[in-house]
């Protein structure tokens, strides 16, 4: 047996030999600290993407203060969480964003942050390029403005491209371009790859989840069965150097397992801290059903991670239920818990996008009410921009209400309704002078870890 496993993303590497304990088997029982932690710093966002996992838009007044956030970082350092994936909302609109990034990297907590690019000016790009400990991920959901802006909102394609140009000009090789795969962009995979190559970036493809506002558009935007096959074939062919955050392990039932852990990491190796400090099992599961605790409670994050009832329950081998008899259960594991939950399917059955077709069958049997399937309701605050929600109700083809705030794009004029945003994103920025990052390694510590990072 081998004594160690490198989890750096290396698609095409031979899977572990049959008689070895696989990492996935070790991880089913959970770890002392997460490998891959997503931390959403704010619900505020300049965009209103129709599939936003966290239904972001408006800042929550209860969001963690700068000091509280630093307290969380101290804890992560003590727990040796090497890396956090910071998101939101749009994290860079937090006035203390750079201060927190600096604080994290000064405390041995590396940062990869997801952004729509709104604050990535040439100056910011320059500073980012000079830090080993900070990685950037630009969201892009269409290889053309037409496809992207339909989902992410008018002007968002141009914003993302400008950010990439700035990063490339600054010499930041290997930043990530993160794409949520939809029925509208699966046909653009080659074009996405070309964009990534053009900007010396690395492509990252993830799965559309029916979480947050994603639940409202999932039926329209999730890939068809034929497109899932197209995606699988593309990943098998081009997987080299493309990150997936282990998103697509349900596709393993097409044939060979894709590289990665092939495990639902929720509460085992993965979790989410939301802007108000709530800890959820995974970034796709913002619902009270998956709420484990809050970092403000006694014992803080560590207590939640180690002892919350929910996480302890999740740290057991998965019950395949209806999937137990399926030949592909060992690699597919019944797919994504959140995808099942938010489409109203039982957790111990097939994924709604089960490539064997069992999920689609099950979707047809869902209870209906008011002309649609019954989906879980939640009492968690929806932070969507109110105008956007109204504009989208009952629409067929999704049209996004324009909500790109003027002035944010160049970082010069704070929007009037967002007084907590400082005019300059560079306030307090003082990256250490470590050697320029030349790494093209997976930016996320989990590599192909079983998480959404």
């Amino acid at each position, binding site marked *: *047996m*081998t*004594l*160690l*496993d*490198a*989890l*750096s993303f290396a698609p095409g590497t031979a899977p572990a030999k049959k008689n070895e*304990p696989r*990492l996935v088997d*070790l991880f089913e*029982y959970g*770890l*002392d*600290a997460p*490998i891959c932690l997503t931390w959403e710093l704010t619900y505020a966002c300049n965009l209103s993407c129709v599939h936003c996992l966290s239904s972001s838009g408006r800042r929550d007044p209860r969001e963690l203060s700068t000091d509280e956030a630093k307290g969380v970082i101290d804890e992560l350092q003590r727990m*040796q969480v*090497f*890396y956090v994936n910071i998101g939101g909302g749009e994290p860079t609109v937090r006035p203390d964003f750079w201060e927190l990034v600096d604080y994290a990297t000064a405390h*041995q907590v*590396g940062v990869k942050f997801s952004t729509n690019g709104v604050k990535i000016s040439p100056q910011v790009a320059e500073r980012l390029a000079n830090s*080993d*400990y900070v*990685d950037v991920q630009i969201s892009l959901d269409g290889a053309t403005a037409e496809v992207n802006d339909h989902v992410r909102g008018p002007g968002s394609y141009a914003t993302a491209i400008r950010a990439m140009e700035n990063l490339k000009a600054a010499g930041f090789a290997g930043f990530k371009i993160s794409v949520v795969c939809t029925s509208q962009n699966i046909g653009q995979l080659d074009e996405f790859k070309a964009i990534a190559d053009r900007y010396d970036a690395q492509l990252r493809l993830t799965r559309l989840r029916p979480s947050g506002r994603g639940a409202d558009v999932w039926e329209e935007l999730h890939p068809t069965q034929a497109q899932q096959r197209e995606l699988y074939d593309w990943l098998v062919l081009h997987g080299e150097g493309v990150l997936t955050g282990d998103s697509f392990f349900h596709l393993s039932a097409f044939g060979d397992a894709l590289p990665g852990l092939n495990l639902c990491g929720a509460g085992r190796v993965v979790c989410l801290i939301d802007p108000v400090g709530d800890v959820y099992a995974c970034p796709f599961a913002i619902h009270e059903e998956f709420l484990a605790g809050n970092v403000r409670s006694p014992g803080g994050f560590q207590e939640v991670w180690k002892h919350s009832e929910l996480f302890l329950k999740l740290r057991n081998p998965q019950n395949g239920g209806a999937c137990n008899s399926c030949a592909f259960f060992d690699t597919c594991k019944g797919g994504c818990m959140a995808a099942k939950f938010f489409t109203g399917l039982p957790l111990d059955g097939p994924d709604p996008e089960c490539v064997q077709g069992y999920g689609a069958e099950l979707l047809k049997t869902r209870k209906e009410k008011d002309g649609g399937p019954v989906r879980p309701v939640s009492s968690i605050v929806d932070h969507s921009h109110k105008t956007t929600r109204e504009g989208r109700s009952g629409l067929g083809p999704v049209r996004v209400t324009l909500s790109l705030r003027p002035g944010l794009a160049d970082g010069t004029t704070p929007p009037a309704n967002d007084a907590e945003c400082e005019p300059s994103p560079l306030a307090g920025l003082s990256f250490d002078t470590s050697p320029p990052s030349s*790494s093209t*390694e*997976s*930016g*996320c*510590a*989990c*590599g192909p*870890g079983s998480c959404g990072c």
Partner: protein
Amino acid sequence: MPTLDLDRAWDLHPKVSVRPEPFGALLYHFGTRRLSFLKDRTLLAVVSSLATAPTARDACTGAGVSEAELPRYQRALETLVRSSMVVERAV
């Protein structure tokens, strides 16, 4: 494959952090952003004692690695050298 001379002194790369876990340990290299998993507490003991042991062989012996097991641990260390987790130490 780079060979690891068991009779020389080795150490973890200064940018590598070690996090013990029930099954072994996690190694994270802040420079390369690579993560490795040690699936064995003995290997963790070996890796942890590299800095103070005069040689890698001494680190292995000290951690209770038998002569028969030595090649396996040497291979594991070589893999760690390849990913820059372990580097040669100037004596």
